[in-house]
C-alpha cells in the first residue's frame, strides 16, 4: 500500500515537473488564489493602522485581461497616495481577491471583505455582470461602492444610492459618438445596412441596443442581429452568416477575446465591411494590436480615457504608471480603476473620515478631479459626461470624436482587414 502511494506521489511530481519544465518563459507571478489576500503595501513606520481598502477582481477567467489592468490602477493609486504621506495621515493597504470572473464568487468575496477582513472602504470589480450583484452586498452593509467598469442600464435601474460609476458616462452611451459620426457622413458614403453581433452580456447589450434605434432612425436597415454566449470560441459559422448578408457596417458587442475571434472569422469568411465598431477590444491598446496586427486598420471603438489627454492629474498618472509598470501602453481599465481611487480619496478628504454614510452623501454632491476629467454623479451614481470615439490608424488608436478631444480625422471607408 505504501509503495503504491509512493509511486503515485512520484508520478504526480514527475508530471508537474514536466509541465513546469515546458514553460521556461512563463512569468512566476501567478494569479493569487481566492483564499489568499494580496497585501499591496506593507505599512512602514506609521504608528496608526493602515486604511484597508477591499476589492474582488476578475484576475482569472473571461475578464482576466481588463481585471488585471484594473488591479494595476488600484495598486498604483495606493502607491501614489502612500508616497505622498497617506490618506488622513494613514497608509492605504489593499485587500484584493480573485473572483475568477464569477459573479457568485465576487458576492462571497465582498461579504468576506466586509465581515471578516473588516475593510474600511470598498472599490468595485470589473464589468456590469460582477458589479450588479456585488453592489447589492455593499449596499446591504452601507458601504460606498465606487466602481470602474459597471455601467450597463441595469446597474442604475435598481435605484441603489451607494454606487458610483467612475467613467465619464454610463456605458450604454459609449457607441453614440460613433453613431453620430456615421450619420454625419454624406449620403454617398453613408452605410445602408448594418449587422449587430453581440455577446449576451449586460454591458455589451447595453452598448449595442442604444446604437440600434439611432442607426435605424438615421435610415439604415438592420440586416442581421445575433447574440452568442460569453463562452463561445468558434465564430466561423456566424461569420459565414454575416458574409452571406454582407452588411455595410458591422457593430460588435464584445469584451476582448470575442472581438478578436469575430474579426479573424470575418477575414476567413471574406467579409469586408465599409465600417466596423466593437465595444471593447479595440480599446485595449497592447492586446488588440498583438492579436490582429495590420488587420486593426480603420476599426472604431469607444473609450473613456486616453493616454495623451492633458486633463488635470492625468500627466502625473501616466508618468507614475510607466515608472511602475514599464513602457507598455496603459489600458483604459487601469485609468478607470485609478479614477475610482481618486474619487474615494477626495471623498475621504472632504469628509475627513471613513464614515461610509458621509462618503456616499459627499459623492452625490461633490465634483471630483480625475484623470477622465471633472466627474460628478446623479442620484443613482450615473456619471454626467460623454465617451469618445477612437479609431485604429497606422497601428495605433487615436481619438476621432468628439471635436474637443480629437487627435486625428476619422478614415472612411475602412481598408480591407
Amino acid at each position, binding site marked *: 500500500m505504501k509503495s503504491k502511494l509512493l509511486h503515485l506521489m512520484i508520478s504526480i511530481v514527475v508530471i508537474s515537473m514536466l509541465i513546469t519544465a515546458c514553460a521556461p518563459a512563463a512569468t512566476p507571478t501567478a494569479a493569487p488564489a481566492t483564499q489568499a489576500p494580496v497585501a499591496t503595501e506593507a505599512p512602514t513606520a506609521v504608528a496608526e493602522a493602515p486604511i484597508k481598502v477591499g476589492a474582488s477582481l476578475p484576475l482569472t477567467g473571461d475578464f482576466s485581461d481588463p481585471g488585471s489592468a484594473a488591479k494595476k490602477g488600484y495598486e498604483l493609486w495606493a502607491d501614489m497616495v502612500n508616497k505622498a504621506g497617506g490618506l488622513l495621515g494613514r497608509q492605504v493597504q489593499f485587500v484584493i481577491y480573485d473572483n475568477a470572473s464569477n459573479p457568485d464568487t465576487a458576492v462571497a468575496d465582498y461579504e468576506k471583505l466586509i465581515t471578516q477582513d473588516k475593510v474600511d472602504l470598498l472599490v468595485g470589480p470589473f464589468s456590469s455582470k460582477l458589479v450588479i450583484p456585488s453592489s447589492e452586498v455593499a449596499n446591504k452593509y452601507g458601504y460606498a461602492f465606487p466602481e470602474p467598469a459597471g455601467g450597463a442600464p441595469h446597474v442604475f435601474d435598481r435605484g441603489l444610492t451607494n454606487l458610483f460609476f467612475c467613467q465619464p458616462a454610463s456605458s450604454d452611451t459609449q457607441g453614440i459618438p460613433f453613431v453620430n459620426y456615421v450619420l454625419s457622413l454624406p449620403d454617398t458614403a453613408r452605410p445602408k445596412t448594418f449587422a449587430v453581433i453581440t455577446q449576451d452580456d449586460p454591458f455589451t447589450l447595453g452598448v449595442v441596443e442604444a446604437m440600434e434605434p439611432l442607426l435605424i432612425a438615421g435610415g439604415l436597415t438592420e440586416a442581421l442581429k445575433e447574440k452568442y454566449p460569453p463562452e463561445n470560441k468558434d465564430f*466561423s459559422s456566424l461569420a459565414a452568416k454575416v458574409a452571406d448578408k454582407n452588411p455595410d457596417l458591422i457593430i460588435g458587442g464584445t469584451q476582448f477575446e470575442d472581438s478578436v475571434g469575430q474579426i479573424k472569422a470575418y477575414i*476567413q469568411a471574406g467579409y469586408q465591411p465599409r465600417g466596423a465598431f466593437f465595444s471593447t477590444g479595440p480599446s485595449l491598446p497592447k492586446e488588440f494590436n498583438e492579436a490582429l496586427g495590420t488587420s486593426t486598420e480603420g476599426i472604431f471603438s469607444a473609450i473613456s480615457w486616453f493616454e495623451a489627454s492633458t486633463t488635470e492629474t492625468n500627466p502625473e498618472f501616466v508618468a507614475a504608471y510607466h515608472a511602475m509598470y514599464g513602457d507598455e501602453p496603459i489600458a483604459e481599465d487601469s485609468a478607470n480603476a485609478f479614477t475610482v481611487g481618486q474619487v474615494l480619496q477626495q471623498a475621504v478628504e472632504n469628509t475627513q473620515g471613513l464614515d461610509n454614510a458621509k462618503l456616499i452623501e459627499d459623492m452625490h454632491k461633490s465634483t471630483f478631479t480625475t484623470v477622465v476629467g471633472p466627474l460628478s454623479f446623479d442620484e443613482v451614481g450615473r456619471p454626467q459626461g460623454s465617451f469618445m470615439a477612437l479609431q485604429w490608424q497606422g497601428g495605433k488608436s487615436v481619438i476621432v470624436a468628439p471635436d474637443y478631444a480629437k487627435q486625428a480625422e476619422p478614415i472612411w471607408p475602412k481598408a480591407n482587414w
Partner: protein
Amino acid sequence: MQAGDDMRCRQPAKTRLSMSLPSAHLLIQTLILGLLVGGVYALMASGLTLIFGVMKIINVAHGAFLILGAYITYELFQTFHLDPIISILITAPIFFLLGWVVQRYILSRIENPEQTSVLVTFALALVMEGLLGVTFQTNMRSVTPSYSTAAITIASYRLPVTRLAGFGAALIVILILYYVLERTNLGRAIRATIQDKRAAQLMGVNVAMVSAFTFGLGAATAAAGGSLLSMIYSFNPASQGDWIAKTLSIIVLGGMGSLPGALIAALILGVMEQLTAIVITLYWSPIVFYIFLFITLIVRPQGLMGETVRENG
C-alpha cells in the same frame, strides 16, 4: 429607469427561438466548415476511444492532455516560431512517454480500474488544470501563425487555412493510427486485447505492455489534437472541461472503443454544431452535443459502431 425596464421587457420576444432558412450557398459553406472541424474533433476523440477499447478506462484527463498539448505548442511557437503542425512531431513523442508513465505508474496500480479510473483520471485532470493555471495563468491564448486568418477560395466557398491544415493533419494521424492497428503485430495485439483481454493474455500477448503502449498512443493523439486546437480556438486551462465533454459525447455516439465510429460521430457532430449555429442560434450549438448524447443513450446505447457491452466475468 423607465427605459431600462422597457428594454428588458422587450427582450424575451427578440430572443425567442426563431429558425431562418439559410441560402443554399450559406448551407454548403456551413457544411464545409462543419466537416473540417469534425475532422479535428475526430483526432481529439480517437485517443479517448482507443484507451477505452483496450482498458475499459475513461480517461477524464484527456481534455487536460489536449490543453497541455496546446500550451506546449504555444510556447514552441512563441519561443522558436515553430509552426503548430510541425510541433506535433515534438509534442506527440513527449506525450507518448507521458502517457506511458501515467498508465504504468498510476493507472496500472489502482485496484478495480474499470470503476475507480474515472476518479483517478478526474483527479489528474484537476491537478493538471491547476498546474497549468499556475504556470501559464488563465488568460485566453491562441497560436497565430502567419496563415491564421488566410482562407482558400474554391468555387466561391471559403476554406480557412488553419482548419484545412487541421483537417489534413487529423486525417494523416488517424490513417497512421489505423495502419498501426490493422497492419502491425502490435496493432493485432491491441485489437486482441480489445476483444478479450484474458484470451489475449493466454495467447501470449503482454497485456500490461499493450495497455501502457495504448495509453501512450492515446496521449500522443491528444498532443496532435492540442497542437491543432491551439491555432483554431483560443484556450485557457479551464477549457479542458469543454473538450472532455465534447470528446466524450463523440465517442459515446460513435460507440465506445470504435475508431471508425468516433470518426463518423465527430463529422456528424461537427456538421450539426455548425448548422445549428446558422439555422437556429449559436446558443444551441454546444447543446447539440448533449442532445445527441441523450438520444444515443436512450435509443442506441452501444453507439453507432459499438458492440453491445457484455459483462465479461
